[in-house]
């Protein structure tokens, strides 16, 4: 078997972004993006949860304080939550958290909540690209491992 | 005690210059106003404030930092872990402005870190530090250092003592280390004018009425209170926070933990507090000090009995920090009074 080439490791800033995806919509949307071979930046790492409402703010805060450059929560569109209302609660929490993060100087783009349905492979890829672009433009997260 | 031959004065307007130069030759730690007054590393004399009764944090941070890397490790290759020392290159440091009570606390800390077991992290810093004390003529109402035989205007536990006597500071070296340092900075100093002792005495008037309790038998008196109800009322009030222990110049408990990263990490030690429930929490889930009463009692028993049993000293210098900063005003001086007077036993 032919081994993949080993391109030179790039030195420019490559943000590391964590995306929590709900099992029913966003994760399925991400799968669909894969099945559709939509090419996208490599920055995003997905953690599967059953519902976007499972993601506690503590985890987002911890991830940012660990130095990850961005955190996304991706869930079903409002009104389409597999569990009826999980994403509505996520939305409330996210509004408060995003404003709080911004208040201490974490740029709003570093924490995003987006809706991606199981049918929206293209949207998943667009959301990933947009986040990667925006967070790259912000530069490294300065709150990671701050002494 | 004070060697008169080494006594000098420095005009108040020359102090900043002296500190500037000290900061260049040494790692200078001095009181800085940042919301409140605390000891911090300074790089120039103008950062330093002398307008304080005492700092919020005691100077123990300079010898026993809240978080201190003991060593770093890397995973490296098949050889396993490689380690390297964690502390920055040890440097000569000067602490300027330490109060006599805090200076005494270091003597108590030495008993812990330089006793049967030598704690090299602490001792290295201790050896490389010159203490410049600042005599205390305006104590707070919560101060009660005379209780522990401390004269707040004395240079007993420092290398050099500065005493504010109005238009100038009286500068006295009480150790060889202090004398050497003064010699290096002699250009800022001048000869005594002769009225210094008189001025100092006048200023001591501010000490009149300072609380001085008779603690000679406290260790014996507190012992029978172990089972008593007295601690219930204190424990009920206590919030279980770490203010008293973290601000205390003599509290020295610590925990050790690792930062464990893919490529390696470090082992650090950090302050811990007997006021926290996890302090004595065992892996089994059992906790021998399961409530606030037990923890409060431990704190006072340690200060007033256990430390004394081991070192023939009480683990308190009467600096008053825990009284000033306790959000519910638990007052160690009052507790000592209650123990001495027998009131504690009657509750």
């Amino acid at each position, binding site marked *: *078997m032919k*081994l*993949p*080439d*080993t*391109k030179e*490791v790039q030195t420019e800033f*490559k943000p*590391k972004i*964590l995306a929590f995806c709900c*099992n*029913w*919509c966003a*994760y*399925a949307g*991400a*799968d*669909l993006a*894969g*099945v*559709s*071979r*939509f*090419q*996208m930046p*490599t920055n995003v*790492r*997905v*953690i599967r*949860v*059953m*519902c976007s*409402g*499972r*993601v*506690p703010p503590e*985890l987002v805060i*911890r*991830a940012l304080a*660990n*130095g*990850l450059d961005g955190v996304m929560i991706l869930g*079903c*569109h409002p009104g*389409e939550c*597999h*569990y*009826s*209302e*999980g994403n509505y*609660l996520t939305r409330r929490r996210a509004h408060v958290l995003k404003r709080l993060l911004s208040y201490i100087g974490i740029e709003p783009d570093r924490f995003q909540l987006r809706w991606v*349905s*199981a*049918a929206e492979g293209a949207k998943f*890829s667009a959301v990933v690209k947009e986040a990667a672009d925006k967070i790259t433009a912000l530069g490294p997260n300065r709150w990671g491992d701050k002494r | 005690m004070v060697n008169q031959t080494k006594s000098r004065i420095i005009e108040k307007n020359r102090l900043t210059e002296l500190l500037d130069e000290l900061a260049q030759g040494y790692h200078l730690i001095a009181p800085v106003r940042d919301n409140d007054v605390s000891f911090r590393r300074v790089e120039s004399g103008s950062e330093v404030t002398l307008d304080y009764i005492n700092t919020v944090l005691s100077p123990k941070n300079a010898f026993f930092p809240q978080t201190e890397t003991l060593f770093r490790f890397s995973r490296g290759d098949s050889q396993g872990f490689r380690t390297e020392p964690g502390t920055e290159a040890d440097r000569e440091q000067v602490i300027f402005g330490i109060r006599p009570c805090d200076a005494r606390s270091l003597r108590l800390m030495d008993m812990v870190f330089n006793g049967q077991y030598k704690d090299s992290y602490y001792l290295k810093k201790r050896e490389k530090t010159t203490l410049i004390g600042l005599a205390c003529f305006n104590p707070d109402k919560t101060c009660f250092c005379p209780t522990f035989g401390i004269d707040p205007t004395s240079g007993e536990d420092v290398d050099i003592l500065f005493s504010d006597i109005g238009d100038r500071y009286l500068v006295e070296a009480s150790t060889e280390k202090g004398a050497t340092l003064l010699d290096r900075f002699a250009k800022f100093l001048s000869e005594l004018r002769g009225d210094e002792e008189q001025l100092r005495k006048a200023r001591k008037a501010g000490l009149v009425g300072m609380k001085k309790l008779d603690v000679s038998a406290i260790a014996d008196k507190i012992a029978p209170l172990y089972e008593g109800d007295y601690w219930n009322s204190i424990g009920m009030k206590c919030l279980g926070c770490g203010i008293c222990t973290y601000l205390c110049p003599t509290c020295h408990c610590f925990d050790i933990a690792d*930062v*464990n*990263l*893919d490529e390696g*990490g470090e082992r650090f030690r950090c302050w811990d507090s007997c006021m926290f429930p996890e302090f004595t929490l065992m892996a089994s889930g059992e906790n021998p000090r399961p409530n606030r009463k037990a923890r409060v009692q431990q704190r006072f028993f340690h200060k007033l009995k256990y430390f004394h049993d081991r070192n023939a000293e009480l683990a308190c210098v009467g600096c008053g920090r825990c009284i000033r900063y306790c959000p519910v005003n638990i007052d160690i001086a009052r507790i000592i009074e209650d123990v001495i007077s027998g009131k504690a036993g009657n509750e």
Partner: protein
Amino acid sequence: MAIPRIGVFICHCGTNIGGVVNVPEVVEYAKGLPYVVHAEANLYTCSEEGISSIKNNIKEHNLNRVVVASCTPRTHQPLFRNACADAGLNPYLFEFVNIREHCSWIHMQNRREATEKAKELVKMGVAKARWLEAQEEFESEVYPAAMVIGGGVAGMSAALNLANQGFEVHLVEKEPELGGRLLNLNRLFPINKAPDELVESIVKAVESHSKIKLHMPAVVKAASGYIGNFDVSIDEDGQETSFKVGVIIVATGAQVLKPELYRYGKLANVLTHLDLEQRLKDGELGEFQNVVMINCVGARIPERPYCSRLCCMTAIKNAALMKEINPEAKVYVLHRDLMTYGVEFEEYYRKAKEAGVRFIRYTPSKPPKVVGTKKVKSVKVYDELMDMEVELPCDLLVLATPLIPNDDNEELSRMLKVPIGDGGFFLEAHVKLRPVEFATDGIYVAGTCRWPADIRESVAQGYAAASEAAIPLRQGLVKVEAITATVDPRICKGCGTCVLVCPFDAIELKESKIRGLEGKIVAEVNAALCKGCGLCAAACPNRAIQQRGFTDVQLLSMVNALSGKR
């Protein structure tokens, strides 16, 4: 908890993963991760060979955790969990890492970064696996009824099959008549019979079946729940109706493209095959002498790259029929490739040629041209074989256009939370392993809503979906994935936040009966009602409530692993 012994299996998936991600490098990397005692690459971990390797290694290395890095848990998790269970390992000690859909397929141009990403994803999976715990599944009852959406031939076949097995079926058809596309057809290939007989018999069977409740014209308005327990509400002729079902079959069919090519809709003698069949059926076609048929109209083009599969046979069927009606007529079929893939299809094609139908191959770069202003007079086409342009006289031009997805697929997809794939058709869980099931348990798919299919295939898929759907209906019980919430009554403070956020009223505050905590008010989860969303676990301030399989320590370990912390 025993010391974790983690085995990592990394799938090449042929070249799907291995062609992009340097799998051997990932395997070496995995070997160095905490608690990993075995790591290996598989050509296909889901193959017989891969599965037996998992089983053998569980025994050989005494593995108590298994991590597979391959495709998506939405399709393959049950397979690998079963493999673990077969080897005596609790299936919940398995963790899935997706390095295909989420890595190799979306980073084909960047092998180095894809490999680095795959390593990190494996690291995160291993970090979670270290904290996995064995779980027991909770069983929940299946409501013994089905809903079939769509009264075409696929839907009716499915409904009849289930009804004949004795299950109650709600058949929801949006038109006022059963039959779907079949109603428009003139004849069926390759039997050349009119569909009336088939339609009549099947519709009659459906309408007269005591177990089938027909809702028509009706559309689904809302659906919620999970396998065994769906609550559905429909709008039936303006009336809102609700009912409960255990399973759902989607068989909503497709529509035929009306092209904007070859001046369709503008010139009177340009028809689609569906138009032609309708006219033949109605006896309204009239005289014709020169018939030209063009295949692949609006199909296999960049914006609609798929082959609709039915059109070639439809064209052959109708071309032969035109010859039959008027043996003197000249009938040409202009095609790109001829797909005669089914049983008897090639024979059918040969017979058409024998009957005098002429087949001319054209290339998409030189498509046929229509000549004529009010009517088509002739069609010019470049004949590849003769290497020249020919002009064919034409008084009837028939276009073979593809089946395209229904407009309401998207709405239904959102309602049922099932995916739509390329081009807007529904997407099954796995094209080979689970061809008529959605990834969401209890929902199935059949007929042309999935992909263009002929009658025979639609009927077969209808039966297949019904058979799959009958499994949970027959068993009467489904095992609920063990991802429900649990409370640690020792640290629960009984604040009731979880009670407020639970969408299913699955949590109550009750007096604890646990020894040492008697009388303490704590939250209690009713596992039968808990659907495993984890909302409570995220809302609980002191984390006394946890979602199994998605615990704090598991998620936090993944976050820390991604951050380079161990």
